[in-house]
Structure formats: C-alpha cells, structure tokens
C-alpha cells in the first residue's frame, strides 16, 4: 500500500498523538492527584514502560513495512525512535529528581553498585547517541559509520528488557515476555547479523 504525501503527513500526526497522549494522561493524573498517594514510583514505572513499549514499536516497523509492503511506515521510524529517547529521558529525570531528589553523588554510586541501574544507564547512553545523530545532516556526514552506530539499537533492545527484569521486586512474567518479544524481533533480523560476518 502506498500513501500520498498528505496521507503520510496524517499518519505521522496520528503517531505523534499516539505517543503524546500517554504523557498528557500521566500529567493529568499526577496533577489531579490520581496517581496514588505518592506518585513517584508510578511516574518512574509509567515512563519506563513507555520507553520500552516505544522501543518495541520501532523494532516492529521495518519487519512490518517489509512484509506488508507498507513503505511509508519507514518514514515514521526516526520519529518513534526519538519518542523512545523522550520517554527514557522522562524516566531518568523522574528517578533523579523525584526519587533521588538530585543527590547526584548517590546516582553515580547507584550506577556503579546496582547492576540493573548500570544496564539502564548503558541503554540510555546508546539511546542518547542515536538521538543526537538522528538528523539528516549528520547522517549524510557520517556515511557508513552512521548505520554502524545505529545498529547499536539492537543492543539497547536486549538491555532494556533485562533492566526491567532486574528491577522488579517479584513477578517476572511480564519482563520475561518483553525479553522474549525483543529476542523475537532480533531473530527476524538474523540474516542481517549473519551477513556482517
């Protein structure tokens, strides 16, 4: 299926709405005092899950576009990738500001001492690099190394659900499902990984 440029534009608007509404919902819930007696953990969880879900969506795009011949989907991939970064940034900002109350020394200590925080931080560094190099101008400048760098998203897709798995206090069904989903999405790309060797 092909879309007219106007159609693509509308599709993008729809995608923006899809990723912005949950943030508006969260803000509304917190502002109207409907996110529990102490919303801090709620916000951290909500934004963490948002980042992870958006990451899954970015990885679903290219297999979907290929299989269903929906080329226009590829034009939304960067945008959704940037939403992964936005949610992850909110997640970390919430952790640092609301939970740690800006005790930066404590953050460093936590990153070093806690494996799940370290894994989260590594994931975030990857997302940060991808986000700052996502502009067309840079992409052109970087040439082949751009693709190389952006293949690191696959590592992020492994690390993010591991971070989730490691962070929960008990029930591991849900994080396990995410690990499986992410592994499945990487498996779909096995040809690509094999080619590189």
């Amino acid at each position, binding site marked *: 299926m092909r879309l007219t440029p106007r159609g693509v534009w509308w599709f993008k608007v729809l995608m923006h709405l899809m990723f912005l509404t949950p943030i508006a919902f969260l803000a509304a*819930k917190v502002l109207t005092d409907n996110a*529990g007696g102490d919303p*801090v953990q709620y916000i951290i969880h909500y934004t963490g899950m948002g980042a992870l*879900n958006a990451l899954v969506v970015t990885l679903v795009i290219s297999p979907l576009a290929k299989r269903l011949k929906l080329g226009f989907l590829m034009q939304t991939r960067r945008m959704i990738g940037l939403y992964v970064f936005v949610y992850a940034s909110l997640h970390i900002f919430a952790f640092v500001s609301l939970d740690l109350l800006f005790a930066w020394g404590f953050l460093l200590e936590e990153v070093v001492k806690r494996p799940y925080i370290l894994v989260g931080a590594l994931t975030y560094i990857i997302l940060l690099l991808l986000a700052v190099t996502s502009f067309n101008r840079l992409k052109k400048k970087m040439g082949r190394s751009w693709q190389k760098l952006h293949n690191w998203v696959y590592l992020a897709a492994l690390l993010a659900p591991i971070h989730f798995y490691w962070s929960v206090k*008990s029930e591991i*069904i849900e994080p396990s499902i995410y690990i499986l989903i992410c592994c499945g999405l990487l498996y779909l790309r096995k040809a690509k990984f094999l080619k590189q060797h």
Partner: protein
Amino acid sequence: MSKNTFTKGVKRQKLWDLPDNEVTPETVFKERRSIVKALGLGALGASIPGYVQAGLFDLFGEETPKNVFQSSELAFQRNSNFQLSQALTPEDKVTRHNNFYEFGTSKQDPFENAQSFQTEPWSLTIEGLVDKPIKLDYDALYKRFALEERTYRLRCVEAWSMVIPWVGFSLASLLKEAGVKSSATHVAFETLFDPDQMPGQKSRLMGGGIHYPYVEGLTIAEAMNPLSFMAVGLYGKTLPPQNGAPIRLVVPWKYGFKSIKSIVKIRVMDKQPPTSWNQLAPHEYGFYANVNPQVDHPRWSQASERSIGEGGLFSAKRIPTEMFNGYGDYVADLYKNLDLRKFY
C-alpha cells in the same frame, strides 16, 4: 532518634473508656468495578502492562473507587511513651500508597481494589504452644484489650518511609493472655486467604508471584518486645482495608513487609516459621529484616530513604536511614550476638 525513654509496663487504659457502639463500621458492600473488567482491556494489546491498562481504564472515569470503605472512630488513650517529634505523613498518603500484593502490586492498587473488602465477621486465632488458645471475633479486636495510640516510623524495604499514628494494643499483652509455653521460640502470623476478595491471590500476574497466604514470623523475644504492636486503627479510626484491616502487626524497627496485614492466625511455635518474602527471594529478604543502613539490598542502597510527608511531588525529603529505624534503644539488645550482615 526519638528521645523517648521507655518505662516498663505500658499503662493500660481503663476499660470504661470504650463505648460499645463505636466499634462497628458501617461498611458498604456493593459491587465495584471488577479487576477482570480492567484487565479485559488486555485484549487491545498484550504489550500494555496491567497497571498501564488500569491507568488508562481509570482515565475513562473510574479512578476513585465508588464506595470508599467506611472507617469508624475508635476510643483510645495516647501512649506518651511512643510519640515522635517528626511531622506525620498525611492520612490520604498513608491510605493511598500501599504495598498489599493481595490487592495488586502497584502502590495505588490496594486503595483502588480493596474498598469492598469485608472485615466483619472476622476471626483471629492464637494457637500453638500456648496454655489457652484464644479466638477473637470482630468486636473483640476492639474490646478485649485497651486501645492506645502510638506514632511509629514505617520504613519500607523499597527505601521510602512514613510516620503513622496507629491505634491498637501490644502484641505482648495478647500473647500473655494466651500464656506462651516455655518451649516456644517463635511466633508465626498468617494473612486471610480469600481469593474471591483478594484478586492478587487469584491471579499470579496481579499478586506478584507470592505464594499465598502471606506468612510472617518473629522470635518470641521480638514478639514480646514492647514495640511490637497489633494495630486495629490509624489516625484514630478503624483501619482501611488497604492498610491491613481489621488487624495487622506493626514492628517498626523492621522493614515494612514484616508488618503483616489482615491477620487471621497467630501460631506460637518451637521453630522458625517460613516467611513469604524470604521464601520468594532468600538472598534479598531475610527472616529478621531489621532496618539497617549498613546492609544494602542486593539491588539498591538502604543508606537513605525518601520520607513521604506533606505537600506535592517535589516536597519529599531524602533522609539518612537509622539503624533499627531509630528504635535501637528498644531492640538493639536482642541482636547483640547476631551477625546482622549474615542474618539480614
């Protein structure tokens, strides 16, 4: 740390201070929105986790439970030996930020899912190695022992804390009445098992993988310690379900999960009983679970805590965690021969 000095033998309140008619809450038992309905949204996308679904669901206009549990006023005496200079955590935070996995694993779940919980009739039995087993029915929970108010700090293992005014009686007075046999070494506690009322006991996903019923335990010396408290109320009223109605344990020098809720059975034993979180993850949660800033949880630090007080989102404070949550004067002696790194 509080400067209160403890005088042996907590003063009993006179029984005539207790009006009979004030202890029965006018509970409203009505159909409320069912969890199944909330989870039904799952059909829309398996990748959306339960609490986000619940969150979305809530946004469609059902966030506050329709029938809020009716608490009733209690008659009690303030015990001046157990008061704190710290400001109290506001009541609406105490009742809306709870860990009670029987009603769901997120902090707001218990408030949302527990409002129609039935506390009456209730039956609490004290059995095992005692001279005289006791059975307390609902009314007896409030009448058998003189009620007193104590303000305690509560430190959650997740590194947040509150300051809460509880109403209840000392665990020791209950155990003394039953008469603990000399062979006894431990006391085991058990929460109600009722999957029809407690959705977390029905669904593994909602209940966090805990093996129900929830069980906890103390040594006899811990149980007899004057700090150990059986709470039937908070903020002067009977406990709301999410806080462990109708009766719960409060052991303020231990992490919150030791303070078991909605208790139906207390069993005096001659060996250490199994405890729920310890069974689930023994390397993370020990039997003792004393608040200890020097022994970190394997996945996070216990050196400081976010103190939940009055005010909005940015009003919380991060304060250093105190050994035994500041109750060392009462309990440090209990552990002087114990390596607290090993017996965490």
